[in-house]
């Protein structure tokens, strides 16, 4: 069974179409990334999937349960971290987790055991009885994650979970997402951090201007833009642009004291550069090939520079 099936979701706010006929199917077990620039429609889509926003058109099923027709049953299967969604600052860290667990019908012993486990995993055991108001942003986000995973949800949905976090909190969040996935949770996360999506996700959808523009594994998306591979080379003395005209080389750009030579065949380009260096009595100071990046795919798909 698919973890999340969203069919033809659309949402407009006045004259602005935020999400335009978006359909996604997320199979059980993976980590699905929803990538897009600010204002692309990521959060609006997530809010419709989690039942926080009522779509103008379309439907969402979570593990077979329609979110609109049976929201209680659908939400019992989810753990959600909303964008900027924080926890109750007047309650302690532990109280926040325990009261969230009550919504999921966990008995007292399970609630307390699980809260202890999660606080330990997220490095907050010593602060469990402190009021959240006194916490840093990173610590609040960790409590937010704790609340989302307290019931070991089958589907974990995180909207920009690492935005604005310090390195330590970010790493804890990523480790926890991976751990939950290993424990059997399907993860849907939105991010505009390309490296994070590349490192975490098994499948990525890129959304732009309310529409899905590409879906695939990070490697598949990179391969779709294989022509953007390049060789970076530097010589012991300045060289001219004309040096880089050769077979398979599409263009060359100067980057500081280096040249970036774009090619669809790095092997041929390297051999060509070696031969012209020998011919012109140049010494190669450094040379490296670069794989296509997800960033390149993202920029091209979203119409960036």
């Amino acid at each position: 069974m698919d973890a999340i099936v969203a069919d033809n979701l659309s949402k407009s706010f006045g004259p602005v179409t935020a999400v335009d006929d978006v359909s996604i199917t997320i199979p059980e077990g993976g980590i699905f990334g929803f990538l897009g620039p600010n204002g692309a429609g990521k959060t609006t889509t997530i809010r419709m999937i989690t039942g926080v926003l009522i779509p103008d058109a379309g439907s969402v099923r979570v593990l077979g349960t329609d979110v609109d027709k049976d929201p209680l049953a659908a939400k019992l299967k989810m753990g959600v971290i909303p964008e900027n969604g924080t926890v109750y600052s007047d309650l302690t860290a532990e109280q926040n987790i325990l009261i969230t667990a009550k919504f999921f019908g966990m008995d007292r012993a399970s609630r307390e055991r699980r809260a202890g486990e999660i606080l330990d995993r997220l490095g907050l055991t010593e602060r469990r009885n402190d009021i959240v108001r006194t916490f840093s942003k990173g610590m609040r986000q960790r409590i937010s994650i704790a609340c989302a995973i307290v019931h070991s949800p089958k589907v974990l949905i995180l909207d920009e979970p690492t935005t604005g976090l310090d390195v330590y909190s970010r790493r804890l969040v990523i480790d926890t997402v991976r751990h939950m996935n290993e424990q059997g949770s399907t993860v849907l996360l939105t991010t505009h951090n390309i490296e994070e999506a590349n490192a975490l996700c098994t499948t990525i959808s890129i959304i732009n201007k309310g529409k899905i523009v590409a879906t695939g594994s990070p490697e598949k998306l990179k391969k779709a833009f294989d022509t953007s591979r390049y060789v970076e080379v530097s010589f012991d003395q300045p060289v001219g642009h004309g040096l880089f005209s050769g077979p398979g080389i599409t263009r060359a750009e100067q980057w500081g004291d280096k040249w970036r030579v774009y090619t669809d065949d790095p092997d041929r380009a390297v051999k060509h550069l070696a031969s012209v260096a020998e011919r012109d009595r140049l010494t190669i100071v450094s040379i490296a090939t670069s794989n296509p990046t997800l960033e390149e795919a993202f920029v091209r798909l979203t119409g960036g520079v």
Partner: protein
Amino acid sequence: MDWKVFLRSIAVVTEKNMRIYYFKGPVVVFGLLFPLIMFFTFFIGRNLDIVLFFPGFLGMMLFFTASSVGPLITPWEKREKTYERLVSLPVILESIIIGDLMAGAIFGVGITAIVFAVSAVLLRLPLAHIGLLALSLVLGSITFAALGTLLASPTTDNPSNIMMLSSLVRLPLIFVSGIFIPLSQLAGWEWILTSLSPLTYLVDLFHASLNGDAVYPPWLDALVLVLVILVFVLCAKVIQRRNLVKGI
């Protein structure tokens, strides 16, 4: 719908509200201090029959306490950004509305029952019908907690806006509700105006419970309050659903 999950969601929303909002400044000021100050303003130094006017004071106390929690909750949660998390939990709109209403009603019943018990002992108040008094307390608290929840429904993340709106609605209701002038002494347009306030029917019920005399039959007072509860809750649901469509 799974009723067990639904009832549980109401209970947890209520518990959450009681833990967080009972001690917030606006609740203490508008729910406790305000009715006491109004009572002293209108009754101290005047030669009024306390037994005759106590039902009015009790109604005012219940009105303010029960309607003071609800207006605060949703705007506060929207400002603190906890509302979206709440909606994404296993709750539906009705769970949130009824949970907010329950928190206000329990606050109203609790405080008003204590005030009544202390006053009954100190002032040796009559008590004609204890069962009717209990029903009045419950119905009145739910009615005005529902009003509080309705007042919280417009889209805003600024609690002070809602507290202002709340005062704008509540204060006129106080003055047209037969608290300061017994219903039996009203006629014409004054009587019509008074009939429009739900507080009138609660005060009348308190008269029936404490003094054994009332203008309307108790069943009519109770029926009006039940209808008012239904109207308030339905209006709150319509407005809050519209907010969900608009994006909160």
